[in-house]
């Protein structure tokens, strides 16, 4: 938490087409979020991950001097890198963005209960807003890279990967558990659709 | 041509709401069940895959009014082979339950109870694999008594009750005692002296063969061709239909050995028939042993769905064993 800095949180609720918007009303979530402490701005949009959505966030960060962003959309496993990059482009430290998963863990699993799904979305947004109040800017850690590769498995995929890496000048270890590389491919008679030899 | 308005989607829901019907639409019609099904051998029009497919399409009337839905005996040979793990007989049961509610009935004939003789002893109700026999109280010859009554919608006509009834009150025309005995003795086969009686070169074998235990027409033909003076084959609706009295009677006459062939454990067409057949033979074996008579003169053998051309070997083995046993009558 940056000391003595006024919190200016922007909340963005994604509709994800009908994936979220088909079950709950994102506008209602945004309206709820707008009353949360520290929130200066709450919006909903059809596709937050698309260019217009991202541009809107970037513009708001600059125009409204947002110093925290909450995106209520899909899983962090899906679009956390997207929105981190997005806020970073607007000059905000990427770790000041937090996501609330209201798709995979809400509307996709509670389509039978829109009322419950809406309540859950509000709670998840409130929790993300609460968390984001306490986050601090962090710097990525830079590590050196050993310019060698390991390919485990000497079948057709492994050989292909190893050859590509080797051609790029990268020293590549190809570890094979059997006596010979070649894998299943080497056992085959001619292969489809060209009917050429497999080895 | 079937018009789309004949496809009743609600029928699919109806079947699936019925216990056992849940998996109706998981079926993708691979035909494993149809190729497994033994009912088809006797009635090629029966096709479990098609019934499921039609039900899945919503051809309500066609499915409910068809005679085929009553033919599945829940032998469940197809169930363990189904790649979608659909308990097909349960789906069939679900469809039947709807049909019963709508007043459909399976075609006969069914076993008949001779109410003049029936004591209501409950042996048949216990024997029946399908719980298709109830004891009911009714007026018989002006007197109130409890007698057995067959529930048509559940009966699979296996004949197990006919064999079980200790007083001969249960009868199913096509497989009656009289019918079986006449098949056993046709052409005077039983009256010819046996090997153990010193009247034949080779032991004479009477085989009761469950019609479901031989799994292909090709094989049936082959087996039928084996019939001779030495071998008499009587096919049964089920090995559970075998009557111990008939076995013993045959042995006192010209049969040196009686072979009963039933389905393999777990493959019985009528669920428990093969166990009944096996139990009867097992008890007969024990009694022969008690009497000091070679128990090899009776045998229960299993024939599984994957056993091909097993029958000739069974007969051969029995012949050898009887020859090796000490003749009882000098």
């Amino acid at each position, binding site marked *: 938490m940056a000391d003595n800095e006024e919190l200016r949180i922007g909340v963005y609720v994604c509709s994800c087409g009908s994936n979220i918007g088909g079950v709950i009303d994102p506008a209602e979530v945004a309206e709820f979020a707008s009353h949360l402490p520290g929130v200066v701005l709450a919006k909903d949009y059809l596709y937050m991950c698309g260019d217009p959505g991202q541009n809107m966030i970037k513009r708001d960060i600059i125009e409204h001097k947002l110093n925290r962003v909450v995106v209520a959309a899909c899983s962090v496993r899906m679009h956390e890198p997207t929105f981190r990059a997005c806020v970073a482009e607007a000059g905000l430290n990427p770790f000041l963005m937090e996501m609330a998963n209201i798709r995979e863990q809400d509307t996709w*699993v509670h389509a039978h209960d829109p009322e419950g799904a809406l309540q859950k979305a509000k709670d998840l947004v409130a929790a993300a807003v609460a968390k984001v109040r306490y986050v601090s800017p962090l710097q990525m850690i830079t590590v050196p890279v050993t310019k*060698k590769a390991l390919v485990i498995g000497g079948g057709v995929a492994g050989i292909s990967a190893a050859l590509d890496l080797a051609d790029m000048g990268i020293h590549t270890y190809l570890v094979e558990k059997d006596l010979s590389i070649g894998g299943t*491919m080497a056992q085959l008679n001619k292969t489809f659709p060209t009917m050429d030899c497999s080895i | 041509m079937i018009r789309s308005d004949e496809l009743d989607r609600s029928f699919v829901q109806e079947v699936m709401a019925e216990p056992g019907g849940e998996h109706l639409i998981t079926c993708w019609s691979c035909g494993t069940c149809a190729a497994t099904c033994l009912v088809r051998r006797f009635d090629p029009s029966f096709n479990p895959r098609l019934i499921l497919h039609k039900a899945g399409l919503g051809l309500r009337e066609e499915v409910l009014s068809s005679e085929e839905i009553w033919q599945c005996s829940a032998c469940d040979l197809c169930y363990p082979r189904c790649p979608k793990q659909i308990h097909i007989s349960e789906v069939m049961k679900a469809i039947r339950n709807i049909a019963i509610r709508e007043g459909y009935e399976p075609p006969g004939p069914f076993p008949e109870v001779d109410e003049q003789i029936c004591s209501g002893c409950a042996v048949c109700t216990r024997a029946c694999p399908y719980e298709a026999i109830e004891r009911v109280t009714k007026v018989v010859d002006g007197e109130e008594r409890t007698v057995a009554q067959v529930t048509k919608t559940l009966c699979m006509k296996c004949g197990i009750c006919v064999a079980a009834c200790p007083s001969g009150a249960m009868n199913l025309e096509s497989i009656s005692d009289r019918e079986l005995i006449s098949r056993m003795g046709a052409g005077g086969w039983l009256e010819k002296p046996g090997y153990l009686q010193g009247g034949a070169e080779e032991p004479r074998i009477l085989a009761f063969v469950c019609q479901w235990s031989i799994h292909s027409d090709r094989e049936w033909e082959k087996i039928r061709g084996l019939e001779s003076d030495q071998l008499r084959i009587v096919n049964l609706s089920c090995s559970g239909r075998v009557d111990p009295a008939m076995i013993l009677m045959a042995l006192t006459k010209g049969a040196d050995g009686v072979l009963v062939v039933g389905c393999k454990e777990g493959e019985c067409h009528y669920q428990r028939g093969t166990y009944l057949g096996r139990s009867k033979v097992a008890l007969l074996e024990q009694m022969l042993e008690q009497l000091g008579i070679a128990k090899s003169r009776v045998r229960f053998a299993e024939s599984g769905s994957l056993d091909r051309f097993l029958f000739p070997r069974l007969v051969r083995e029995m012949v050898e064993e009887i020859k090796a046993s000490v003749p009882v009558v000098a």
Partner: protein
Amino acid sequence: MVDAARHPNIEILAYSEVTKVDGYIGNFRVEVMKKPRYVIEDRCNGCGECARVCPIEVPNSFEMDIAPRKAIDVPHDQAVPLVYAIDIDHCIRCYKCVEACGKLDAIDFSQEPEFVELDVGSIIVATGFETFDPAVIPEYGYGVYPNVITAMELERLSNSSGPTVGRVVRPSDGKTPKSIAMIQCVGSRDSRFMEYCSGFCCMYTIKNALLLHQTYPDMDITILYMDIRTPGKGYEEFYNRARAAGIRFIRGRPSQITEDPETHNLFVEVEDQELGEVIELEVEMVSLSTAAIPQADTERLSSVLALSRSPSGFYMEYHPKLRPVDSPSDGVFLAGAAQGPKDIPASVAQGSAAASRAARVLTSDTWEIEPIVAKVWPELCISAQGKKCGICAQACPYNAIIVEPGQPAQIIQAKCHGCGGCAAECPHDAITQDHFTDAQIVAQIRELLRENPEEKILVFMCHWCSYGGADSAGTSHFEYPSNSRGIRVMCSARMDQEFILEAFRRGAGMVLVSGCHPQDCHYITGQQVAAKRFSRVPRTLERLGINPERFRVEWISAAEGEKYARVITEMSEKLASFDKEELRAETERARPAIEKRLRRWMMTPHMAPFLKDEEEQEVEKEVMA
């Protein structure tokens, strides 16, 4: 194969297995076990004199065990490397090979497994697949009837470098069959075994049929299939060729194969779906197109590399559409059938894709990694006060914490992977984790339980597995009750007992802690640290007067969406069975004792306000201001 062997930048370690992997993207240290060949690689020139004199024959798995090789041999003539090896389990130690090798002196019976360490920046997992053993399908008679073979066996039989020099013969009598049936989807598309479509069997079966047709134009060839799937470039045309060549196609899945014990001919029973009639096909040979299944050592390697597996058992990609060759572990990539059944073109393409993903890292001098690491509050660490502790160091799977008496514990940032186990284990709350601080987590607990807490299930999820499992429930649309509320941390090791107590203090109806299965843990032993901690929680709750049935621990992998949905459903049902008044009363009764246990927060940065409602208000104001 030969290209790889000749490439100056490729070092082949054949007959070797990866046994241990440490480190992180750009900086992996890998331990590889070289299994003993009992032949010195540098000296063997592949002349084969040793095999010629060896008196022992052993099954050759390269030939699907249908042909033997010698106890000292190469699997096949084109082996790379062309170095012989001794099958020590079968060797009778007659030493004839030693004699035959003569001056080369390449045979060395004293060899032991050798361990080498490799430093690499990136790892590509391309371990391939195995074929399903059809013997588990009794109705197909594989292993019982000699003339029922697998498609892989047919590959070897028809291969001109195979044991019969390409002559296809029946195992029962060595004669070329006049008829053959090829059965598709053996083990695939079968919910008893492999639910999925193995993808390439249709094509290789068509290929085998065409090859047989070319070699034996009179052979009667039938393919029994449920669907023919040819979704590749030129594949449908290939299928058309087979149709045009007169290969018989019957749509239907055979119910059983039986054998005539005299001729060893086979009867295949199948319903021809088009006809609706059962065909009994008498053929002289049957080939089963068996499913592609995960390699037997997939599980072992997945725990060495901290990879997850899909429900099918293959390695799971980071994202099925957007990052198909990335694994969840940074710097580790997937290629080929290890990730799921694939044909050769797809495997080659994925190999290249994985190479290019790996090259992004390997062609850079440096790489940026997330700064989500542990942080010590020096003034709270009792080690600084000269007391003996070191609990944090014990909990760390990476030896990233140094504890010296008189000094506060010190985190080595480059070694820290950010599981948060130390932060949760520290009995003095002297460690926190960036981006998953106590305050951040407790703030979420407060918000999620602000209204009707007794109706809710609070779920702690680890980033890699159970959060993925919850996502996977979502992608599969497995519905479950809407009263659960999740909090994500990196590892179950981060789930402090204090968080669980706080949740109950706030009146949560139920609490679920969930993480990876032990072998899947992304942080080596993080899950174990957590499991041990959670095992003590029920007793603690009991002592506090809280029904321990309100607490549950479940290990849910990223693939187990069904399980996640089921667990929440079960908990929800259980919660519904509790009397809510009683729950509230339980909370009220336990609250003072819990607060006593949490009073350390009064000292921890940012934490004090969470303990008292009034102070919460104040901090709110403070934050607002």
